[in-house]
């Protein structure tokens, strides 16, 4: 019997422990078949409570208007757009893992892609809330759709990046959802086939769309995955590029810069991977999946974090340098006074951002720290805070002092309803994530099985013997040939 697959021993195994195909199913489906733990209920109820608080905050905003948030005539964009950009950015890691790493044939993506894609979808759902409710008269939201109408006809402005934001985010959401769900089908069928109660059989049966695992199904499935990966790959770059255009196409000092698109994309991937780390470290522990989300996976993601964090740092320094070098007094004022001056009203936020996003990820040059779970968890929180402040700095420190000093804003701080809205999106995100972790396989079972024989620890161990054997045979043959 010949070995079908081979992977170098230099690569770490992606699945630890002595696993066979059946054990993989057992390990991943077990949490779905068990009753949820007390911890799950506590987490779920807290999330729902936050969500309800968010719903009430939105109710206040819709009833009384945008004035419920502490926005004023100088700061028209505060926490809401900060949160929007932050959530959209979070989503990018999922798409990068599922699309770009699929095209690059990165085996380690199989352990984390499912949960990261789910994270993407929930994060985009949260992001979408902010521009929608920021409209104020939300019942006019359909105005963003381009269709022949009786308002003139008054068409949407195709020259505005805000409109392209609508298209970008909705495309992104649709493609991510399709990608995630089509990947789920075989695994939902696995859960269906193991179901014992009538209700579970029906629920997972409907959800699995009649998947049988026939070769034809797999052929179509693989080719659909490639098509969707091809569609998602440009989206990783385009979505945050368009988000950055919201700022970059304006003439506001601090926004009017051409490096925003790559800078935003790097920042998005950076924050997204931090969020994946936060979630995965908890999930692997609670659901007992350490064999599938290994230290190797965590290290690989930390490498992405140190790379993208450094790109972001480079972008910060570049824009600071160009603000000085460009000699535009307004641009330089925004950077030297509104941001870099620690004693200006928001100077602290600039330096907090610098510390969290540029200085702290440099710890990950050390292999020891990259493989330390406590440090990684702590760092992932720091990065998420830092990336939130990046958007806050860009938005608030640029607009709070405009060209007319008489309208310079007094200190802006968010109202409770503005904060409540943000907390509400956390509620939405975690409510969805808790439900996902309880009712869906958080790791792609079929994909893990397809890499098990190349990257499973026990299979790799067997391969070592074969490798040695072959080398000896080869050596003997070579020596005999030489004589």
């Amino acid at each position: 019997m010949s070995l079908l697959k081979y992977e170098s021993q230099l690569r770490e195994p992606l699945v630890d422990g002595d696993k066979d195909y059946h054990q993989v199913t057992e390990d991943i489906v077990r949490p779905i078949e068990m009753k949820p733990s007390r911890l799950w209920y506590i987490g779920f109820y807290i999330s729902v409570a936050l969500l309800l608080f968010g719903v009430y905050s939105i109710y206040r905003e819709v009833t009384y208007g945008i004035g419920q948030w502490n926005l004023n005539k100088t700061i028209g964009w505060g926490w809401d757009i900060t949160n929007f950009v932050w959530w959209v950015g979070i989503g990018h890691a999922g798409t990068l893992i599922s699309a770009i790493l699929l095209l690059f044939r990165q085996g380690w993506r199989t352990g984390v892609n499912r949960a990261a894609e789910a994270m993407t979808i929930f994060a985009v759902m949260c992001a979408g809330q902010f521009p929608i409710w920021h409209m104020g008269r939300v019942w006019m939201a359909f105005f963003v759709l381009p269709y022949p109408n009786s308002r003139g006809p008054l068409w949407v402005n195709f020259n505005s990046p805000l409109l392209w934001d609508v298209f970008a985010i909705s495309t992104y959401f649709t493609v991510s959802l399709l990608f995630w769900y089509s990947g789920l089908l075989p695994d939902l069928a696995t859960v269906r086939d193991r179901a014992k109660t009538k209700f579970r059989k029906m629920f997972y049966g409907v959800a699995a769309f009649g998947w049988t695992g026939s070769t034809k199904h797999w052929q179509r499935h693989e080719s659909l995955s490639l098509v969707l990966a091809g569609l998602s790959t440009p989206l990783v770059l385009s979505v945050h590029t368009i988000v950055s255009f919201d700022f970059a196409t304006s003439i506001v000092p601090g926004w009017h810069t051409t490096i925003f698109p790559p800078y935003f994309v790097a920042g998005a991937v950076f924050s997204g991977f931090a969020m994946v780390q936060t979630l995965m470290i908890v999930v692997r522990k609670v659901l007992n999946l350490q064999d599938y989300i290994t230290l190797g996976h965590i290290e690989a993601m930390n490498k992405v974090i140190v790379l993208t964090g450094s790109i972001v740092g480079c972008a910060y320094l570049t824009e600071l340098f160009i603000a000085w070098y460009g000699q535009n007094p307004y641009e330089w004022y925004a950077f030297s006074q509104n941001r870099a001056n620690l004693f200006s009203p928001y100077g602290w936020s600039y330096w907090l951002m610098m510390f969290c996003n540029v200085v702290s990820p440099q710890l990950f040059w050390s292999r020891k720290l990259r493989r330390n779970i406590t440090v990684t968890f702590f760092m992932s929180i720091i990065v998420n805070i830092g990336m939130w402040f990046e958007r806050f700095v860009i938005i608030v420190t640029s607009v709070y002092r405009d060209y007319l000093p008489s309208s310079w804003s007094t200190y802006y701080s968010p109202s409770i309803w503005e904060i409540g809205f943000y907390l509400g999106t956390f509620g939405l995100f975690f409510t969805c994530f808790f439900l996902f972790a309880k009712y869906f396989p958080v790791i792609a079972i079929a994909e893990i099985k397809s890499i098990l024989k190349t990257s499973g620890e026990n299979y790799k161990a067997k391969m070592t013997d074969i490798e040695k054997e072959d080398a000896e045979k080869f050596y003997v043959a070579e020596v005999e040939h030489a004589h």
Partner: protein
Amino acid sequence: MAGGIKKFVVGSFDDEAVLFPAVKNVRKAGYKIHDVFTPFPVHGLDHAMGLRETSLHTAGFIYAITGTTTALSGISYILVHDCH
């Protein structure tokens, strides 16, 4: 096959490395393989079974071209012809 009764043989395998040569040999022996069910994608099995390539890619391309053409014509009409 007297009386039009169809006969099926079902094989069960627990290793794709055994399944592959089996599929090839069964086909070589002149039998028609109805289907092979696997819990994960086995690469190259569709070729071994003699399945036709899917035309999903072509369909996707046609949809994409249609969508792009519609979008560009729509934008062009709105920006150029329908401005008052």
